[in-house]
């Protein structure tokens, strides 16, 4: 998302840093799960889905086996629907395989309060019963409001609650970086 | 009784071709003198500087609802609403419950109007018993009791044979039959004008032909019988055209149009606004233009309100279920001035002709003029005052109007009946 507001900005990661973080996570996933058997990646829309696609390519490059990838829209599982108006636009969930008994890696760009992950877990629960679910994120910025932690983290980033972390990816934003801003517009913090 | 002198007003009295500054002297309920300047000589003076002084308006078409539906209107609330609108005489339609089809109801209405002592109320009797369109009423009894005309208004006399006999028989009395021209089969189930708006809203339409078919038939019957038909609330261009030709042929045909048909079109229905549900329905702009043209060239003799009050809850229903009718007495002048006089379509003198002189003539009354000796029914108007229509402020029990929220020009300041202001 192209931000036009906010205070001073600091670049936390550049394209190269993001690339290296994803390669490292790919290796960790393979190591922890002992290969690609029964493995599938599910990215949370919008940027988590892009990162899942990239991670899948990295894993394939290392292991020479294709990995199934899906994308998940968690809008309908949000716990704040009754508190915001208008209702956010719903995108489709696109998982073209049965998740039952798979080892699922849930992928998102930023881990913050944990509420998005909670919604994603509920959504996955409605789709089937995987063997296990692990969580991979590019940035963990702290401030959890639920008992959730990531299994794979690109970068741990200590932040103020009022700050804002923007992950910008080439596919969507035509720029590749992670930026920390002293957010001026509340409500958009993540 | 003391004399009253209306000073410094602008007198508009088309019957006497007066349109200028005159003083009007009233003595014992009659017009005593009209001169450029009259000395007070002890008469009670009313300063009418800046005001129009005109003969009181005569409404040929009022629904008073009493007896039967006193929750919609009573003779008293109707008369008060009439005076607020400048009407010193109202002609009450017979579609009461029971219908005004015999002497008893006519006498009741006259007694009630006299007891209240506000506007002059003139009854219109029914043409057929129970307004059922089957059997003629006793015309002589009704006229003897004081009816100024007969009508089955609300319904047409659809049976051509019956209408022929009625027109023939009414010739004895030299009084008109007022026809609500509508072919009941052509408009069956219809709730608004048949046109683009009804098509869009999915509502059943009433075509203009539903009216003009009956106008054509009755013109032919006038020609056949030599009788006098007066067409109520004209709405379609075709009707105007046929009446124009009938008049040119010298037939005894008169007609009226309402302020709402002159000012509004079917667009006023908007998104199912029941306050614009009226019968005949508000029609297309071409129809409205034809009505205005008919008014200007004399085809349409007068403006009548078709004041049709209903309760709030009835009008709050969905469009199909809500009753037809507009509460019109209190907005008539403002609507006419705004729609006709302000744009220069009608002069003040022509407007008074349509609201006072001509309807009085059709009703066979001596009023409608400021001639010496005529009843001192006088209305004082502020021609420039602008006001906003708020139906909640209506005196009438019918607090519904398609003009709600609109700004109108021209307001009634004072209405005198037989020289007295009954409001005081």
């Amino acid at each position, binding site marked *: *998302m192209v931000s036009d507001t906010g205070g001073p900005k600091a670049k936390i990661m550049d394209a190269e840093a993001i690339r290296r973080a994803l390669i490292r996570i790919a290796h960790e996933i393979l190591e922890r799960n002992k290969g690609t058997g029964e493995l599938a990646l599910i990215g*949370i*829309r*919008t940027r988590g889905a892009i990162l899942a696609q990239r991670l899948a390519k990295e894993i394939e490059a290392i292991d020479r086996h294709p990995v199934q990838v899906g994308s998940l*829209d*968690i*809008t*309908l*599982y949000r716990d704040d*629907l*009754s508190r*915001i*108006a*208008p*209702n*956010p*636009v*719903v*995108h*489709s*969930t*696109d998982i073209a395989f049965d998740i039952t008994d798979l080892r699922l890696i849930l992928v998102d760009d930023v881990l913050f309060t944990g509420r*998005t992950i909670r919604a994603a877990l*509920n*959504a996955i629960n*409605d*789709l*089937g019963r995987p063997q296990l679910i692990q969580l991979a994120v590019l940035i963990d910025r702290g401030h959890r409001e639920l008992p959730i932690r990531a299994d794979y983290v690109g970068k741990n980033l200590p932040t103020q609650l009022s700050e804002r972390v923007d992950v910008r990816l080439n596919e*969507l*934003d035509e720029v590749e970086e992670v930026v920390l801003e002293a957010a001026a517009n509340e*409500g*958009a913090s*993540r | 009784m003391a004399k009253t002198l209306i000073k410094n007003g602008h007198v508009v009295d088309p019957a006497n071709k007066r349109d200028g500054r005159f003083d009007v002297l009233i003595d014992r309920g009659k017009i005593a003198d009209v001169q450029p300047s009259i000395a007070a000589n002890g008469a009670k003076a009313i300063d009418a500087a800046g005001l129009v002084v005109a003969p009181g308006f005569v409404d040929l078409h009022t629904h008073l609802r009493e007896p039967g539906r006193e929750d919609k209107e009573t003779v008293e609330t109707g008369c008060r609403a009439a005076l607020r609108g400048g009407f010193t005489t109202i002609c009450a339609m017979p579609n009461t419950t029971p219908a005004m089809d015999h002497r008893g109801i006519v006498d009741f209405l006259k007694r009630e109007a006299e007891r209240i002592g506000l506007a002059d109320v003139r009854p219109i009797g029914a043409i057929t018993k129970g307004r059922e369109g089957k059997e003629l009423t006793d015309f002589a009894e009704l006229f003897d009791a004081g009816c100024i005309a007969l009508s089955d208004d609300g319904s047409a006399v659809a049976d051509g044979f019956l209408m022929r006999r009625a027109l023939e028989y009414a010739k004895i009395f030299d009084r008109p039959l007022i026809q609500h021209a509508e072919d009941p089969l052509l408009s069956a189930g219809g709730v608004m004008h*048949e*046109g*683009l708006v*009804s*098509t*869009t*809203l*999915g*509502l059943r*339409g009433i075509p203009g032909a539903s009216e003009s078919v009956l106008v054509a038939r009755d013109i032919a019957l006038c020609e056949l019988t030599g009788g006098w038909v007066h067409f109520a609330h004209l709405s379609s261009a075709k009707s105007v055209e046929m009446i124009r030709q009938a008049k040119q042929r010298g037939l005894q045909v008169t007609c009226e149009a309402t302020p709402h048909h002159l000012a509004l079109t079917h667009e006023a229905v908007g*998104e*199912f606004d029941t306050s614009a549900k009226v019968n005949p329905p508000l029609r297309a702009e071409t129809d409205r233009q034809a009505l205005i043209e008919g008014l200007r060239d004399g085809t349409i003799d007068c403006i009548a309100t078709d004041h049709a009050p209903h309760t709030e*809850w*009835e009008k*709050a*229903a*969905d*469009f*199909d*279920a*809500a009753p037809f009718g507009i509460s019109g007495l209190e907005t008539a002048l403002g609507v006419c001035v705004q729609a006709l006089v302000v744009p220069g379509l009608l002069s003040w003198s022509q407007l008074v002709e349509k609201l006072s002189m001509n309807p009085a003539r059709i009703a066979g009354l001596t009023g409608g003029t400021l001639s010496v000796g005529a009843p001192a029914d006088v209305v004082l108007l502020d021609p420039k005052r602008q006001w906003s229509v708020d139906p909640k402020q209506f005196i009438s029990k019918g607090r519904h109007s398609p003009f709600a929220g609109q700004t109108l020009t021209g307001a009634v300041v004072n209405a005198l009946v037989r020289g007295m202001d009954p409001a005081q």
Partner: protein
Amino acid sequence: MTTTTTANGTQTAQWIKKDLLGLQSLTAEEIRLVLQTAASFREISLRPIKKVPALRGKTIVNLFFEPSTRTRTSFELAAKRLSADIVNISTQGSSLSKGETVLDTVRNLEALKVDVLVIRHAAAGVPHLIARQSQASVINAGDGAHEHPTQALLDLFTIQEKKGRIEGLTVAIIGDIAHSRVARSNIWGLTKLGARVILCGPPTLIPTQIEALGVKVTHRLEEALAQADVLMLLRIQHERQEAVLVPSLREFRLRYGIDRERLKSAKPDVLIMHPGPVNRGVELDSAVADGPYSVILDQVTNGLAVRMAALYLVSGAPKVEVEENA
């Protein structure tokens, strides 16, 4: 995620209307938003657990003053798949003082704090009347011969799904246009999205001046058949026959009924649509209704997704104070 950015980065319209009363009052962007949202909802019905928690805690009332099984069931399932609580109220409404009863019923529901009212009524404008008086969101499930917005939206969705586009297509709507709310809503929707609309039927069933809405009218079926990418057939109402609009159903079928033989003169990839229930052997021959061109059952499936989208969107609209005594 709070983003309203789509995958290709374009900003989409947001839904801010309290009610869904008709397609006449929607912009092309709003129509596209409903279709896009419905596309997202379609997948839910294919899951083993066909339910999402989006409208948990919301109360929806199906208020049907006119009998209907299909539309009512579709709304009911849509509400349930969104985890809303739904109550069905069917009243046949006495013909006397109908309006009073309608408003009284609604005031009672209002007192029970209902979030969405889905309304079907035989009189045009009833949902509009109620929407003006009610805090609850109102979805018009068919009002007289006026509008049936969710039917038209599911028709648009189905055309989009099968043809890949709506703009530039020619859609022929055939039959009783005059009494059809489906026709009116589809005329608005199709023309707003750039389709060409041909209305076809006997003159007695074509309402006056309808060409002013940007459609073409023909009384000859062959003309409509030759040009149409989509044939949308309407139900002939048996009960209207008393009004002498067509001399007989048989004569209607001979002139305007679609059978295999007639279909030979249509485009090879033509779609046959019908809002149901079909009068087999009147407007549509059984062989055609069940044949390869027919997408009638897809319409039913898509109707569920479209109604889920409608419920989701209106129940998220910003709340506004309703004008007193409106």
